[in-house]
């Protein structure tokens, strides 16, 4: 069977490219790994967000420093009765309004210049707000200049609702039948670690004793750890007794809760497909950082978990 040259070359090229992609992934764990590039106006992870934020701020400052004399006039005019920038109102729009309100102070050309600049600022502000919504840490960091970068955004979690993502509220029971309400639970603890597992998952069951130790450690600091066995959702009796069995065998005494699978929390749980998954939740019910996927008995994951816990505890004291 004769294979002609171009066919071969094409095949080799395709294979090399695939190999390259695969190797680059294995070599460095922080590679972006995104399939959707090309939308340069949207940062794809926190690192990019910080960089973009800085750049945009610099652009805005550059515009404002170009015609300082003119801008000063604008700012003076703004003081006269103009409402200061309201929450959510774009700074660029605020500038435009101010310019409108004081247009008799400027010549035609100056007005044109200012309006163009203000519009640019409005666009920049829109982008900045978007970045700040997705990566609140990015806004902080670009202003402080801090170099620590949080973990990249997880595409499988539901999108943000503006601020930090809230852990979905639930009202359920623990395995002994006591009612558990999420708001009460979270507000009673400085930090709550929520571990998702299921009865036939080997690594999940393997880390149960470690989780119990962590629970005891956390309770000394005013926190706690709870487990959610996804088999027990909707109160499946057999699953509950099996789960209790396994927990007893591993010496895990911490609370395990279940709730309905069609509620907010239930749907959130069904979206989780990789186990075990651990979330760190602060006192107000917000999820701190990214979920930790995989057993926390692994050194790397244990460190990440500890970092998130410390972060939540520190924020709670502040």
């Amino acid at each position: 069977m004769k294979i002609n040259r171009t066919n071969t070359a094409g095949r080799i090229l395709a294979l090399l490219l695939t190999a390259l992609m695969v190797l680059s992934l294995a070599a460095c764990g922080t590679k972006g790994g995104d399939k959707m590039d090309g939308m340069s106006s949207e940062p794809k992870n926190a690192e990019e967000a910080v960089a973009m934020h800085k750049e945009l701020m610099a652009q805005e400052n550059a515009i404002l420093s170009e015609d300082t004399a003119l801008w000063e006039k604008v700012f003076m005019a703004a003081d006269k009765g103009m409402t200061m920038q309201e929450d959510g109102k774009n700074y660029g729009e605020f500038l435009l309004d101010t310019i409108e309100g004081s247009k008799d102070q400027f010549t035609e050309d100056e007005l044109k210049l200012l309006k163009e600049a203000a519009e640019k600022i409005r666009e920049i502000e829109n982008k900045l707000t978007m970045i700040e919504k997705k990566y609140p840490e990015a806004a902080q960091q670009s202003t402080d200049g801090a170099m620590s970068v949080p973990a990249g955004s997880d595409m499988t979690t539901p999108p943000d609702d503006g601020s930090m993502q809230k852990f979905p509220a639930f009202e359920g029971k623990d395995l002994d039948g006591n009612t558990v309400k999420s708001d009460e639970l979270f507000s009673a603890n400085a930090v709550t670690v929520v571990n998702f597992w299921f009865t036939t998952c080997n690594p999940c069951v393997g880390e149960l004793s470690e989780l119990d130790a962590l629970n005891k450690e956390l309770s000394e600091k005013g926190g706690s750890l709870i487990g959610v066995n996804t088999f027990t959702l909707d109160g499946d009796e057999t699953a509950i007794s099996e789960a209790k069995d396994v927990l007893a065998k591993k010496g895990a005494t911490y609370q395990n809760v279940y709730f309905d699978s069609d509620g907010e929390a239930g749907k959130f749980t069904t979206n989780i497909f990789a186990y075990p998954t651990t979330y760190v939740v602060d006192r107000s019910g917000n999820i701190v950082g990214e979920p930790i996927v995989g057993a926390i008995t692994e050194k790397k994951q244990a460190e990440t978990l500890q970092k998130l816990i410390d972060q939540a505890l520190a924020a709670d004291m502040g």
Partner: protein
Amino acid sequence: MSCGKKAAAQIVLLMAGAAMLCFGVWRGEAATVLSKAIKLCLECVGIG
């Protein structure tokens, strides 16, 4: 293997296979398969 013996063996195995399959489903094994297949136990596939 002569023709007749072979055909007999084939039929027997087919029936045995079918029987085992049904028995396994009745035992609840199919439910175990489903529950393991839709939740990714990471270590089980060699991640981590």
